[in-house]
């Protein structure tokens, strides 16, 4: 039987449902973070990985922008606005991430060195590039902006207060998180606008739902892997492997 086109409220509800049960705020690293169970060196490892996931975000969006047709002017503008705010509007968002990383005891050089990310992060980054470059541009927006970016406010609303109250960081050191509570709400909403307007067939709506589901799975796996690699109480006997982490 042919699928029917969902109206906007049904489609939005279906997107939310596609993310349920696989949201990164519920992954082991996020829970340990909220519970006050992490130490500064864990946050340092998080920052060294997170940089390679979010650092190229404007690259990802630029590929989607290029794949979007000329007549989707407003959608292209929304993508450009997200890129502008990530990189140029004021302070570069990754510079705030590095400020936090330095407060955790690591360095700009270590954060920017791609050899310091674990293989799951490398997989997430590669998936983001591949999705942006090769998927339908609306589905790619659904994946990266809705499936990944729109989750951020919910994650950081939980994780920002313990950074101040349990882990003892200053407001200046954790500006990255405060910023993203609001910025990714705006960015995610722009993504929703694009997907709601341009996913205009049942098939494309379904593709978008699958893309959102995949994206949520990717972010969940990435977040869980941070716990598995850097927090779980396991050390290799071999010093070289121990330096890499557990698993």
């Amino acid at each position, binding site marked *: 039987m042919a699928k029917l086109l969902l109206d906007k409220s049904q489609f939005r509800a279906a997107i939310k449902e596609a993310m349920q049960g696989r949201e990164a705020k519920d992954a082991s690293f996020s829970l340990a973070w909220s519970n006050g169970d992490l130490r500064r060196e864990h946050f340092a490892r998080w920052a060294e990985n997170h940089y390679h996931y979010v650092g190229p975000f404007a690259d990802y969006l630029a590929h989607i922008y290029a794949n979007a047709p000329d007549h989707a002017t407003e959608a292209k503008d*929304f993508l450009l*606005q997200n890129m502008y*705010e990530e990189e140029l*509007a*004021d302070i570069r968002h990754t510079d705030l991430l590095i400020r936090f990383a330095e407060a955790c005891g690591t360095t700009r050089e270590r954060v920017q060195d791609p050899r310091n990310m674990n293989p799951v992060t490398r997989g997430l980054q590669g998936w983001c590039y591949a999705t942006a470059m090769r998927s339908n541009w609306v589905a790619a927006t659904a994946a990266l902006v809705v499936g990944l970016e729109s989750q951020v406010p919910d994650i950081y609303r939980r994780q920002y207060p313990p950074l101040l109250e349990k882990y003892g960081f200053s407001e200046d050191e954790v500006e990255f998180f405060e910023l993203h509570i*609001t910025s990714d709400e*705006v960015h995610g*909403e722009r993504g929703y*606008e694009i997907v709601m307007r341009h996913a205009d067939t049942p098939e494309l709506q379904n593709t978008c739902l699958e893309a959102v589901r995949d994206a949520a799975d990717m972010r969940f796996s990435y977040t869980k892997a941070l716990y598995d690699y850097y927090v779980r109480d396991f050390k290799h006997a071999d010093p070289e492997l121990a330096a890499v982490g557990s698993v």
Partner: protein
Amino acid sequence: MTEWIKAADLAPLQQRRKLMVSVAGQDIALFYAGGTVYALSDICIHKQSRLSRGLVFKGKVVCPGHQWAFDLKTGWVDQWSKCQPVFPVKVEHGVVYVLPEPQVRETEPAAHERFCETG
């Protein structure tokens, strides 16, 4: 009694959709959206970025600093329940006038008071 002061000609604001002006010693960001002119204090109440460098999205000006999204009409930001000062505006014969008396809400505006409902 405070008087209306000429802030800008309407035509360039219609073209550019936003403009920073200085009125009675106050930096004010003018926005043209939905056929209406709105005036907000240009300096963000959060961390002093300039709203005139921000973008308008769904009836809100998004601050370039931390993307606080202020309702164009009321200055209200939902995420933090705070308010950017706004100024009364009138347009006569192609000229934008501003009353340089900042207005700040203490409480959340009702839906019908916001840009999205009326703009």
